[in-house]
C-alpha cells in the first residue's frame, strides 16, 4: 500500500472517528482517548440541557405557523390574480392621482384636502387655489370684464421704471396707448387708476366669488377696520380712500405662502394683492377691499390683522394670479398695496417676487 493510500485510509478513519462510527475499542491506540472524548461529547442530552423544551417548542411552532405562506394555488391562477391585481392597482392609482389633481386644480376638493394639495404642490411651483374657509360654497357671479393682467403688469413696470420695460413690452404699451389715443404714461396712469376698461372682446370671464375675501361676510368685517386703517384697497368703482404710493417693489400679489385668515377665492376667483401687514395707521390690520372688477359692486373684504389679504377679482379667470387681479381693480389700490408692502420690512422679498412673476405670467 502506498503512502497515499495510507493517508487516505487515515483520513477515512479520522472521518469515522469524528462521526462517532469508531468506538474507543476499535480506534488505533493513539486515538483511543480521542475516540472516548468524542463519544462523551456526543453523549445523550441531560435534563438541564432540555430545560424549557416545551415552552420553546411551542414558541417556535407558533412562529412557524405565523410565517407559513397562504394555501397554495395553482400557478396559472396565481399569475392571473397577480397580473389583475397589478393592473387594478395601477388603474386605481392613476384615477386617484389624476382625479385628485384635476379636482385640486379646480379647487373642488374638500377644503382641508384642497389646502393640503395646494400647499404640497406649491413647493414644486404649482399654484392651486386655496379653499375658502366658508362653510358654504359661494355662488358664482356673472362674468365680469377686467383689464388684462399683462397690460396692468406692463404699466406697473413702466410706472416703476420705464427703462426696465422691454422693447416688446414697450411696443405693446404704445400700441395699447395708441388705440386709446393717449401716450403710454397717460395710458398707464389711467389704467392703473382703474379708469380703463378693455373692450369686451379682450376681457376674460371669471367667476368672482361672493363670500370670498372680496365680498360677502368678510366684507362686513372689513368695513369696520377700513374706517380706521389706511392702506385700504378698493376695487374699481369704489371711491379711493388711500393715497397712492409709488411702489418701490412690485409686491402686489398675494402670496400663496401668506397665511390668510379671511376666505380665499375659490374656483375661479383669484387672490388679490398681497399683504395687509403694517399698513397705514393701523399696522397689522391691512384692509383689502376687493370687488367684482368693473362692476362697481365689490364690497370690502378685510384681512385679519397681520394676515395677508386677498381680494377677489373676477379678473382674468383662474389663470391669472392675484397680482393681476389686484391691478385690474385700480391703480391706487395696487400702488397703495405695493408701497405699503414695500414699506413693511416684515414682508418677505419672495412674496413680492412671486406677485410680480405671477402678474407677468398672467
Amino acid at each position, binding site marked *: 500500500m502506498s503512502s497515499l493510500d495510507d493517508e487516505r485510509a*487515515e483520513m477515512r478513519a479520522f472521518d469515522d*472517528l469524528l462521526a462517532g462510527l469508531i468506538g474507543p475499542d476499535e480506534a488505533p491506540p493513539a*486515538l483511543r482517548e480521542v475516540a472516548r472524548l468524542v463519544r462523551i*461529547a456526543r453523549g445523550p442530552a441531560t435534563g438541564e440541557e432540555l430545560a424549557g423544551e416545551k415552552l420553546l417548542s411551542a414558541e*417556535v411552532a407558533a412562529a412557524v405557523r405565523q*410565517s407559513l405562506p397562504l394555501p397554495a394555488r395553482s400557478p396559472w391562477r396565481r399569475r392571473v390574480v397577480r397580473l389583475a391585481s397589478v393592473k387594478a392597482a395601477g388603474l386605481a392609482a392613476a384615477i386617484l392621482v389624476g382625479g385628485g389633481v384635476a379636482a385640486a386644480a379646480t379647487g373642488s376638493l374638500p377644503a382641508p384636502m384642497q389646502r393640503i394639495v395646494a400647499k404640497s404642490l406649491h413647493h414644486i411651483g404649482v399654484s392651486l387655489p386655496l379653499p375658502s374657509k366658508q362653510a358654504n360654497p359661494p355662488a358664482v357671479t356673472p362674468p365680469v370684464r377686467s383689464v388684462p393682467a399683462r397690460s396692468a403688469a406692463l404699466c406697473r413696470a413702466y410706472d416703476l421704471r420705464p427703462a426696465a420695460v422691454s422693447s416688446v413690452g414697450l411696443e405693446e404699451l404704445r400700441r395699447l396707448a395708441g388705440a386709446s389715443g393717449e401716450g403710454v404714461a397717460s395710458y398707464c396712469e389711467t389704467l392703473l387708476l382703474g379708469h380703463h376698461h378693455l373692450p369686451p372682446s379682450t376681457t376674460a370671464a371669471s367667476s368672482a366669488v361672493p363670500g370670498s375675501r372680496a365680498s360677502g361676510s368678510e366684507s362686513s368685517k372689513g368695513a369696520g377696520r377700513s374706517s380706521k386703517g389706511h392702506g385700504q384697497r378698493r376695487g374699481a368703482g369704489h371711491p379711493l380712500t388711500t393715497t397712492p404710493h409709488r411702489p418701490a417693489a412690485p409686491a402686489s400679489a398675494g402670496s400663496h405662502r401668506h397665511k390668510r385668515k379671511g376666505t380665499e377665492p375659490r374656483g375661479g376667483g383669484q387672490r388679490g394683492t398681497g399683504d395687509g401687514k403694517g399698513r397705514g395707521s393701523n399696522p397689522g390690520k391691512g384692509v383689502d377691499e376687493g370687488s367684482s372688477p368693473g362692476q362697481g359692486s365689490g364690497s370690502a373684504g378685510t384681512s385679519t390683522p397681520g394676515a395677508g389679504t386677498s381680494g377677489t377679482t373676477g379678473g382674468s379667470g383662474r389663470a391669472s394670479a392675484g397680482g393681476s387681479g389686484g391691478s385690474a381693480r385700480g391703480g391706487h389700490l395696487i400702488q397703495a398695496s405695493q408701497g405699503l408692502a414695500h414699506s413693511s420690512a416684515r414682508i418677505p422679498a419672495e412674496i413680492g417676487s412671486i406677485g410680480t412673476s405671477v402678474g407677468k405670467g398672467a
Partner: protein
Amino acid sequence: MGELDLEQALAAACRGEEWGVNLLFRALQPQLLRYLGQHAPRREQDLASETWLAVAERLASFEGSLSDFRALVFTIARRRLVDHYRQEGRRLRPLPMEQEAEVADPEQGPEGVVEVLSAREAVAALVGSLPPAQAEVLLLRVVADLGVEEVAAVMGRSAAAVRVLQHRALRQLAKRFAGEGVTK
C-alpha cells in the same frame, strides 16, 4: 431517535406542528448548547434561544434534508456567536480549556477517568488546546454532527480545507493524549 424519525419531525416542524419542533429540539438543543457553551460560556442559553427563534423564521420555507437543517441551525448559531463576539470586541474562537488536563491516575486507568467527564468537559478537552480553526472543525464535526461538506459550508471553506484541518487536529490530539489520560 432515528434519522427517519427526525426527517419526519422536520417535515412536521416545517408545517408548524409542535411535536415535530419538539423532536428536533430534543435532538439538536444539547448539541447547540455544547457548541455555544464552548464559545460563550454562560451565554449559551440565550444564544441558543435566539438561534431557535431565527430558525423558526426559516422553517416555514425550509426545503432540504435533516443534514441541511443541521447545517442551517449551526450556521445561524455561528452568526449569533459572531454578533456576540463583535459586541464584546472579540473574534470568534473557541475558548481554551479553563483548566489544564491532568494526567490520569495510572491506578485508575484512563478510561475510568474519562467516563466521569461531562459532555461539555469532554468537548473542552477535545478542542481546548487546538488552534481556533481546527477547534471549530472538530466542534462542528463532533458536537454538531455535521459532515465535512456541511462544515465547509458553515465555515465558508472548501471541503478539502476542512479535511486538512481535521487531520491536523487529530494528529495533534493523538500526540497529546498518547499515553495520557484526561481527568478532572
